[in-house]
């Protein structure tokens, strides 16, 4: 035996002892679905792009973002961010200010003129899209990236749909909107403005299109019957907001009543204030809690001096005199008349009671089903007529820009599969990353960064954007508040806390693996994982 002087016995390494045989359950690395991604109607991988933003790699972050949504600068301004309502960080301090980071990335892209990757080789197929709103443009973007030739017919004089004709400038500056639309068109998408489609089948035949995606939106303001002794000046909200864009500024007068409780009602009331109205009064038949408008928008409107009469209906109109009746809620929470009447003086009444879809282009399409004024589509966004797909406000859904953008993406994938003669099957979704799986200890307290807001006086006098963007350092701070729920961010905790050195570090970007020869299954790695990216799975014996 070849041992040093005085040493008579050789020693072996404990590596011969495979302690993995002790294990009754094994740690397994998983990727869970972060709640923000789960909540995003546009299907963004929010945690994924925040991961890049955290290291200051804004271009990579933007590229990851636009995999799913071509409108980050728009979306960061107008989306009602259901992601933030779902954010697990809210259980620690406050939700991550996701929309502000998204807007920052969108603005960075515009500032530096970042372009989309050019489409791959052409598929030889061509698709007609009717309507250049968020849904149509989103579909155009995704179809173009899939190699199809895309043509958009837009009935109006400008592209953008409700992003332009429904959302006022002070929430979405038009240069931002134009720039993001232009970037989509630069992919080779053909846009024909002032081109109304009266018969979709004829339009498809005429242009030799292989498939069509309809996204005409909902642009007809709903009416209601109000007894009028002598009719005053009554407008509908859609026309008012549309008029702001087409140059024919609506004459609203000094005192304006807006009837309705949705976001459009608030947009009109805030627009009226900016046009010089001294009084902008919203009349809504239900309570503040029941209002469909977004709470933050209501807050901003109230700051600007918009007034609201909750639980009121308009009973009668006599020129400039409006009789309103107080309502009360019954046991089911529905408003019921009380008989208490009051009169208000106003120059104009604007109806903001919701919108209907103009479905006349579908009159002669066989197989198509219409339900409650919207087009019925199957799970693949296809209408009853093969090859014609539809999305956005004209199908049953919550009517927001983000939902519309999501429809565009989803439809594009199904149109693409249909054109190739197959069916698109999405990848199975991961399990949701729950707040209970977060090990809060490892995250420092960091309250959310607040966007600067324009002061109320300047808001009342013009159409300047109300909310500012985050500066670079605050955006970075905000991105780093992300907990990375359910997705490994390579913090090395598992590698560090294993008492048996059974976690193998594979190097930057490559994550880790478990050496099951030695892992005893103590679960320390799973317990101390900050973001819940390790699951314990029982061993089968």
């Amino acid at each position, binding site marked *: 035996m070849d041992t040093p002087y005085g040493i008579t*016995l*050789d*020693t*072996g*390494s*404990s*590596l*011969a*002892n*495979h*302690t993995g045989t*002790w294990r009754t359950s094994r740690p397994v690395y998983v990727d869970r679905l972060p709640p923000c991604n789960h909540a995003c109607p546009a299907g963004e991988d929010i945690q994924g792009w925040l991961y890049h933003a*955290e*290291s200051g790699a804004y271009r990579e972050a933007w590229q990851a973002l636009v995999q799913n949504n071509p409108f980050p600068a728009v979306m960061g301004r107008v989306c009602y961010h259901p992601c933030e309502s779902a954010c697990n960080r809210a259980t620690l301090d406050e939700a991550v200010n996701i929309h502000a980071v998204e807007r920052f990335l969108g603005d960075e892209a515009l500032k530096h003129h970042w372009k989309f990757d050019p489409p791959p080789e052409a598929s030889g197929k061509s698709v007609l899209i009717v309507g250049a709103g968020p849904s149509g443009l989103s579909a155009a973007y995704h179809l173009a990236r899939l190699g199809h030739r895309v043509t958009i017919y837009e009935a109006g004089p400008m592209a953008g749909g409700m992003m332009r004709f429904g959302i006022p400038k002070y929430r979405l500056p038009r240069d931002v909107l134009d720039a993001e639309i232009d970037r989509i068109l630069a992919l080779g998408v053909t846009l024909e403005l002032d081109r109304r489609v009266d018969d979709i089948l004829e339009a498809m035949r005429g242009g030799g299109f292989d498939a069509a995606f309809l996204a005409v939106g909902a642009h007809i303001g709903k009416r209601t019957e109000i007894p009028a002794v002598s009719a005053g000046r009554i407008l509908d909200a859609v026309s008012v907001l549309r008029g702001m864009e087409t140059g024919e500024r609506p004459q609203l007068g000094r005192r304006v009543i807006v009837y309705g409780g949705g976001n459009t009602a608030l947009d009109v009331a805030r627009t009226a204030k900016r046009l010089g109205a001294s009084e902008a009064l919203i009349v809504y038949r239900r309570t503040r809690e029941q209002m469909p408008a977004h709470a933050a928008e209501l807050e901003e409107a109230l700051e600007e001096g918009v007034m609201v009469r909750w639980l009121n209906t308009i009973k009668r109109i006599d020129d400039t005199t409006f009789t309103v009746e107080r309502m009360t809620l019954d046991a089911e929470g529905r408003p019921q008349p009380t008989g208490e009447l009051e009169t208000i003086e106003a120059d104009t009444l604007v109806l903001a009671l919701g919108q209907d879809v103009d479905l006349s282009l579908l009159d002669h399409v066989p197989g198509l089903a219409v339900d409650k004024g919207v087009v019925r589509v199957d799970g693949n966004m296809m209408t009853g007529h093969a090859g014609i797909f539809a999305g956005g406000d004209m199908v049953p859904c919550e009517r927001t820009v983000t939902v519309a953008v999501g429809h565009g993406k989803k439809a594009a994938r199904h149109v693409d599969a249909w054109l190739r003669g197959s069916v698109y099957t999405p990848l199975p979704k991961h399990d949701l990353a729950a707040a209970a799986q977060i090990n809060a*200890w*490892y*995250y*420092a*307290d*960091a309250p959310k960064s607040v966007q600067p807001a324009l002061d109320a006086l300047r808001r009342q006098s013009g159409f300047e954007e109300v909310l500012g963007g985050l500066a670079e350092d605050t955006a970075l*701070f905000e991105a*780093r*508040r*992300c*907990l*990375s729920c359910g997705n490994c*961010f*390579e*913090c*090395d*905790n598992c*590698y*560090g*806390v294993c*008492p*048996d*050195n*059974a976690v193998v*570090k594979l*190097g*930057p970007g490559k994550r880790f693996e478990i*050496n099951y*020869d*030695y892992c*005893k*299954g*103590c*679960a*320390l790695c*799973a*317990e*101390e994982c*900050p973001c819940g990216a390790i699951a314990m799975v029982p061993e089968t014996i």
Partner: protein
Amino acid sequence: MKLQPVKFYQKQTFTVGNRLVAGHARAVQANMRRTNSLNSGHRACQGCGEALGARYAIDAAMQATGNRVIAVNATGCLEVFSTPYPETSWQIPWIHSLFGNAAAVASGVAAALRVKGRKGDRVIAQGGDGGTMDIGFGCLSGMFERNDDVLYICYDNEAYMNTGVQRSSATPAAAHTATTPAARGRSGNVFGTGKNLPLIAMAHEIPYVATASIANLRDLEVKVMYAMSLRGARYIHISVPCPLGWGSLPADTIKLARLAVESGLFPLFEAENGEITGRYQLRHRVPVTEYLKLQKRYAHLFGDTPDLRTIGEIQAIADRNIRRFGLAA
């Protein structure tokens, strides 16, 4: 404190590594090429805090000395589970003699190295709370008062776990052990017994004394590395929860170490030449019940009628520590 807190509020501040900070600001344990001084295949229980603490400490010492560490081990869990002949998990020169003489053997090794002029080779003695505080106490005190050039590390799991969980002088009040049962009207270990070895070490006015926890890895590493930068007798006392002896889940080992610190029961501080020079201020102070209720050795305090008086007395110990060591933020 030698540890410069990284101003990094958002995330990963408290984790082992962090892709967003420079390499030198990351823990030794985050390094792909850490020495793994205590290798895989050792026979420690699932979720052993001592195995973890030993690797943390010795890897940090290896890093600080350019891999020139010789370890002397007292008898105890660490010795038994790491080195059952003919196997060893140690990837460093390592010697075991008796239960009570680790400090004396280490003094001898240090003397031999001095005689041979091997200045770069450094000696660490290590043992559990039994081998350190009870059986090896005389040798340890001698090593301190002679100011021998040895870092002594005590891995404190608060009882003789290897032999079947018997009480040691580190066993906390009210804890159930085989020799202080919580049964037949007795309520675990007696209040007012035991000793505080870090304070006794400080009374020797040796160059460096520190306490550390496996729940605060960077703090532990920085303390070990600082200790290795000094000469003379040094002492580090590390809290290492024991799933077997404490009756806790293996997965809760680090959580328990953290709760021991954040409740005030295990204060983290450091001292030079007998004077306290640094203290860890509690980040999320918790009541002691958070810590106690995860352990079966305190199960008799809970149940249908919680022993509020005893829990209150343990809370008073924690509160006194917080006041005495200035732990409140």
